């Protein structure tokens, strides 16, 4: 791995360059917007430093709301992932099961939150359960569909090997299909991680009085100049989404380092 240090350095450089580039682009765009006589300029695109100022000014509010949102997101993520994996495992047992269940999941996903939330509240009669349900509902599908595909990714000869041990459904699942599904599962989890924040934000909107979603929606509904937290909350959400994704990536590198693009030593 004589190439390693150089590559690492280059990666950092590129990352830094990208960050600087994005900021520069933002400044230029903001300048363009603000220099016109668009009355909505301030809402459309504030300057980065203005946003940073807002974040600093509202740091305690954002921190508290961010934490609320993150906590819920983590719960939703965990529950959603478990439900997603479970449902895909069930569906992967037989083609007719998949064909029979998928339409219902699709149909369920199509129900807008404004229609779904009241029903969930009515069924569960418990705000906490409803919130977990909503957060998980948002995330589980992305995990489910990924794992479903992953469970089918093992090469046919591997099934023959398992069959020669008379491994049965459960053991084939445990020793072959699930491990083979791990790369796809992590792809699904990468998608689900930031999505769980959205789930959490939606939870904020169904009866809670806190969280970034609540602040943002209120700000966006009422505010323009007055909406101090809006852009700050967006940045915080982006940052949380980034961190959650990175966390998934990190876990993947630890849990499933065998994948081709994570290997060391092979060119």
């Amino acid at each position: 791995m004589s190439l390693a240090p150089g590559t690492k350095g280059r990666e950092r450089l590129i990352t830094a360059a990208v960050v600087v580039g994005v900021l520069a682009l933002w400044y230029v765009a903001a300048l363009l917007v603000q220099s016109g006589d668009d009355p909505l300029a301030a809402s459309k695109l504030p300057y980065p430093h203005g946003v940073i100022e807002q974040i600093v000014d509202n740091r305690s509010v954002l921190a508290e709301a961010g934490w609320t949102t993150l906590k819920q997101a983590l719960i939703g993520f965990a529950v959603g992932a478990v439900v997603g994996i479970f449902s895909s495992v069930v569906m992967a047992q037989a083609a007719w099961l998949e064909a029979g269940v998928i339409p219902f999941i699709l149909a369920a996903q199509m129900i807008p939150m404004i229609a779904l939330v009241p029903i969930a509240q009515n069924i569960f009669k418990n705000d906490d359960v409803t919130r977990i349900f909503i957060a998980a509902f948002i995330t589980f599908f992305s995990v489910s569909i990924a794992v479903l595909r992953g469970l089918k990714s093992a090469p046919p000869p591997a099934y023959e090997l398992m069959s020669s041990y008379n491994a049965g459904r459960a053991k084939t699942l445990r020793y072959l299909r699930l491990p083979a599904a791990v790369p796809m599962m992590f792809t699904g989890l990468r998608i689900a991680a930031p999505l769980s924040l959205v789930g959490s934000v939606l939870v904020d909107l169904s009866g809670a009085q806190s969280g970034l979603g609540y602040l943002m929606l209120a700000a966006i509904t009422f505010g323009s100049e007055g909406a101090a937290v809006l852009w700050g909350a967006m940045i915080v959400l982006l940052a949380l989404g980034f961190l959650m994704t990175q966390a998934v990536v990190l876990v993947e590198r630890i849990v499933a380092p065998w994948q081709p693009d994570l290997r060391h030593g092979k060119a």
Partner: protein
Amino acid sequence: MSTATATRVRNVVAPLVIFVVFVSLWQAQVFNDLFGLETFAIPLPDQIVEAAGDNTAELWRAFGQTFTAVLLGYSLGNGLGFVLALLLLALPHGAARRAGAAFTAFQALPIIAIAPLVALWVPDSLWFKACVVTIMVFPSMLVYAWRGMSGVPPESLELMASYRASTRQILTGLRIPAAVPQIFTALKYTTVLALIGVVVCEILKSHDGLGYEIHDALQLFSTPLAWAAVGILALVGIATYTVLVVLERALFPWAARRG
């Protein structure tokens, strides 16, 4: 071969049977009783069908408006995600990983927050919806396509390297075909995102489409009509998903072989 046909028949019959049973139970108010749901919260199938029958023209028009936006946003979003995945491939792995995570983080922005902002920029109803959907959809395609294309077996890359295949040739000859299963997974998944996205836009900020119908009907407490619109959405979602499944099998039998 007859077993294959039998399997195929079963795969069509099973969902139908499940559907019929489900609808019958629903019509018999089993779910309403079980969950203590009033029929104004969840109307019965016959009420929904009736509402759909009474408002066919309106729903049909709304469907057209929604579907146009879905198609546009879906194509733009998946296109953008794919192009970005190609760009990521050009970066060294670590940088690509971070950039990928940054793009993925876009999904953390709730649509209810982006939609009003996008609306400031894009007043036109159709393009507004399409833009929001693009923002929602692209990260998924990005992640799937990128991972599919970067996770090819090293031996295959060596083979291509031995021919000094150009980056483009490696892409079209190896990476993209190898990523077909992932790309299709993304395509299937994003149909759902696109539909949800457009509908939420219509609920929040539009004057047309099925989302607007739903919102309007709920506001007026005409829940059967709202659920008729939801039912149409569900059918559209199932139909597009099915089309993709069939398309993949037909076009890429080698990719579906493992299924």
